[in-house]
């Protein structure tokens, strides 16, 4: 039996050795040939490299997510002013933003003028919006939002009061958590107070709201209280009347004069004693 087995084995070894060729009868190589001739290689390699493929897919998903996040991340452009400084900024659609002192405005450069024109601001700013009915222009402050198509207006945001003054065109003014809304037209102003959570609309034109831009303060039969308010606002100081003259009115125009000169003129004209006490 053993002998027979050895003889048989010797025969098989001889048989195999006789046909042996280096690199022949390679099952993997043969399968690749078979598969490629039948266009099934791709399916097979996908299975074989399943983990590789899965890893690639995961990586792509990761990259895709990253790109999406990256693409959707706002690209803020912010402009700020120091107290007393003013700046004129033209937005990509050539809308003018005139920033008063100690204010900022910002917009997302990636989205601005794509579907909407949205800016955010704090402080005081005058807007002269280029008309584009397809892309409404909106300004958000911490408590309010102004939406327009193409007008010029000013927003003055103070800690408890936000005021909008419309110079030309039509403005939609929304304020508070309740989204209270008013439509304002040229010459109208609206104030939102975060204390009583109400919008108050004033129909009379207040030219001095833009004095910081024009450099001109105009008074026409203006009550003294209002004169004091406008001067305080323009020169950013506290002004008090140390005389007791109620009910006097002022008609005058000042072109960016020093405060001391104005106070002297007003005091002499109205016989009052206006004193600038301190900087705000």
């Amino acid at each position, binding site marked *: 039996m053993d002998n027979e087995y050895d003889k048989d084995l010797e025969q098989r070894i001889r048989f195999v050795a006789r046909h042996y060729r280096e690199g022949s*009868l390679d099952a993997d190589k043969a399968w690749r040939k078979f598969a490629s001739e039948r266009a099934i290689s791709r399916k097979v390699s996908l299975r074989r490299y399943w983990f590789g493929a899965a890893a690639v897919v995961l990586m792509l998903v990761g990259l895709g997510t990253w790109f999406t996040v990256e693409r959707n991340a706002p690209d803020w452009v912010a402009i700020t002013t120091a107290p007393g400084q003013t700046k004129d900024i033209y937005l990509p659609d050539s809308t003018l933003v005139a920033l008063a002192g100690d204010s900022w405005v910002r917009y997302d450069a990636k989205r601005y003028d794509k579907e909407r024109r949205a800016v955010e601001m704090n402080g005081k700013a005058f807007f002269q919006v280029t008309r584009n009915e397809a892309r409404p222009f909106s300004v958000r402050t911490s408590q309010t939002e102004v939406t327009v198509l193409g007008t010029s207006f000013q927003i003055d945001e103070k800690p408890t009061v936000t005021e909008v003054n419309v110079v030309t065109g039509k403005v939609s003014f929304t304020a508070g958590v309740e989204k209270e809304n008013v439509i304002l037209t040229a010459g109208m102003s609206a104030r939102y107070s975060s204390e009583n959570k109400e919008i108050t609309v004033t129909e009379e034109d207040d030219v001095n709201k833009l004095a910081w831009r024009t450099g001109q303060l105009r008074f026409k039969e203006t009550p003294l209280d209002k004169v004091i308010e406008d001067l305080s606002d323009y020169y950013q100081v506290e002004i008090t009347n140390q005389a007791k003259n109620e009910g006097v009115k002022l008609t005058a125009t000042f072109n960016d004069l020093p405060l001391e000169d104005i106070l002297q003129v007003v005091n002499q004209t109205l016989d009052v004693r206006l004193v600038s006490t301190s900087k705000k």
Partner: protein
Amino acid sequence: MRRIVTDNERMAAITTQEFEHHFKSLYKPLCLFALRYIDQVEDAEDIVQQAFADVWDKNRAGNTIGNLKAYLYQAVRNRSLSFTLQPVNAEATEQLPDVEDTSEEEDIRRSERDARLWEAIDHLPPERKKIFLLSKRDGLKYQEIAEELNLSVKTVENQMSKALKALRETAIRIYMFFFG
């Protein structure tokens, strides 16, 4: 024996993956089976490729093959026989291979063992493989191999005994597997 009896692969429209598995495990034994009828390794590989192609097409057409392995051996035998019967010249037909009349199971088992031996040769270290092939394939005597490779006869004997030992161990493992 166990393996052959239980290995009744039913082939009801098998998947590409299953097909690939069968292809890779059966390819070498089938080639060595074909080499019993025909002489050239390329021809044997072509025949086995064709046999698999036939099964692939049948499988794609939804035809069920009861015992894939038996079917393939039969197909390779038929293709090999018709290949050798293509009368290229008179001499070729006279030299019909003396195929022993063995059972189908015996054929399969032997071809699988041949495949293992082929792999064992594949795995021999290069120098030992060269010596082994000069002896067993090319029929050189140890003395001739020694001269050819500029080695001592002792070295050739030594390498040959190591090569044969490796092949025997492979063969024994196979027998153990079948009969153990």
